[in-house]
C-alpha cells in the first residue's frame, strides 16, 4: 500500500557509549549524536520493522529475536541492514537491546514519534496506558524509497485489537526476499 513512497526526512537523537557499567555511580560516559533518515536509508537496501514498545511481551519474545536470529541469512539476500524502530527513547532502546543480547539488529529510537507520525503509523495505545506508539509494520526500503510493505491488520486508535503479529514476521520477509533473489538470478 505504501510502495514507492519516499521515507520522510527526520533527525533522531541517539545515545552512544553508555554501555560502560558504572556500578550504581552517577557518571555516564555516553554522548548524544544526531542520526538522520539519510544515514539509515540513503543508498542502501534495508529491512525496517516496528513494534509498539521496548520490553513489551510479543515483540520481546518473538519478533526482535526472530530478526536477530535470521540477520545473516537476510543480509545474504541483498539486504544491507536490519533496523527496529519504536516510539521509545534511545536510552530505553539501548537498554532493551542489551537486555535481549542483540548484536546485529540496529535500533532506531523514535521517542518523539516524528518518524512514525510521518509514516502514518502513529496510533493511540491508551488502553495500555502507553500514549502514542507505532502500529506494527515491516518494510523493505531501497535508497529511501519503500520497495515492499507489510502491516498488521486492524490498525486503530482505540485498542480494539490484541496486537496481531501475523504479517510483520521474519518468515514473511525471508519468503519475499528469496523470491526476489531467485527472480533476479534468472538470466535475461
Amino acid at each position, binding site marked *: 500500500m505504501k510502495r514507492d513512497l519516499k521515507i520522510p526526512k527526520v533527525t533522531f537523537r541517539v545515545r552512544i557509549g553508555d554501555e560502560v557499567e558504572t556500578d550504581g555511580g552517577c557518571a*555516564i560516559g555516553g554522548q548524544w549524536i544526531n542520526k538522520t533518515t539519510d544515514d539509515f536509508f540513503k543508498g542502501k537496501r534495508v529491512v525496517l520493522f516496528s513494534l509498539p514498545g521496548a520490553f513489551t511481551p510479543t515483540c520481546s519474545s518473538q519478533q526482535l529475536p526472530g530478526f536477530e536470529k535470521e540477520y545473516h541469512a537476510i543480509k545474504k539476500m541483498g539486504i544491507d541492514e536490519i533496523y527496529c524502530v519504536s516510539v521509545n527513547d534511545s536510552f*530505553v532502546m539501548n537498554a532493551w537491546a542489551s537486555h535481549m543480547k542483540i548484536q546485529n539488529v540496529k535500533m532506531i529510537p523514535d521517542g518523539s514519534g516524528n518518524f512514525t507520525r510521518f509514516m502514518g503509523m502513529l496510533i493511540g495505545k491508551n488502553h495500555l496506558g502507553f500514549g502514542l506508539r507505532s502500529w506494527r509494520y515491516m518494510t523493505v526500503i531501497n535508497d529511501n524509497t519503500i520497495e515492499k510493505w507489510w502491516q498488521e491488520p486492524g490498525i486503530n486508535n482505540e485498542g480494539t485489537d490484541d496486537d496481531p503479529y501475523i504479517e510483520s514476521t521474519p518468515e514473511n520477509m525471508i519468503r519475499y526476499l528469496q523470491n526476489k533473489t531467485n527472480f533476479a538470478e534468472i538470466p535475461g
Partner: protein
Amino acid sequence: MRVPYTNFKTFEKDEWTEIDTEDIFSEKKIVVFAIDGAFTSGLNDKHIQEYDNAYHNFKTAGIDELYCVSVNDTFVMNAWFNKLGIKNVKPLGDGEGVFTQGMGVLVNKPKQGFGMRSWRYSMLVNNGEVEKLFEEPGKNNASDDHDPFEVSGSNTMIKYLESK
C-alpha cells in the same frame, strides 16, 4: 490542589491491573517524585536510589508509600526497577502523560528526541491533596536546561517532614 484523577495501567506478575489515584492516595500520606525517563541518566538512578534507601526514614516520618512517576509505560518502568534492584519505591508508569499533564509539569524534550516527559519534582500528598510541592527551577519546553536536581531529592523531603 488535588492530584489529577488518573487510572494507571500496570502489568504485574503477568497480569494487567488498573490502579487509580483513589487507590494510591485516599486516606494516605504519600510522597511522589518524578523523573524524566527510565534508563535515561545516572541522575535518575541516583534520584530513585536515594528515595529507595531512605524508605524506612520516610515510614518513620509517617509516610505510607513512595512512588516514582515517569512518562514511560509499565513494562519499561518494571524493567528499569529490576535493573536497579529497587525494593521499596513503587513505579507509576504514566505512559499517556495524563497525570503529568494534570500536574502541569508535562514538558517537551526535543533535544533528546524524547517527546513529552515529566519535569523533575517531588511532592507530599495528603489524602489526595498536594500539601507540599518541590519543583526544580527552570521548567521549559525546549530542553533548555541542565536537568537541575536541587530540591526534589529525598533529603529535602525528609527535612520538610521532620520540620513539621
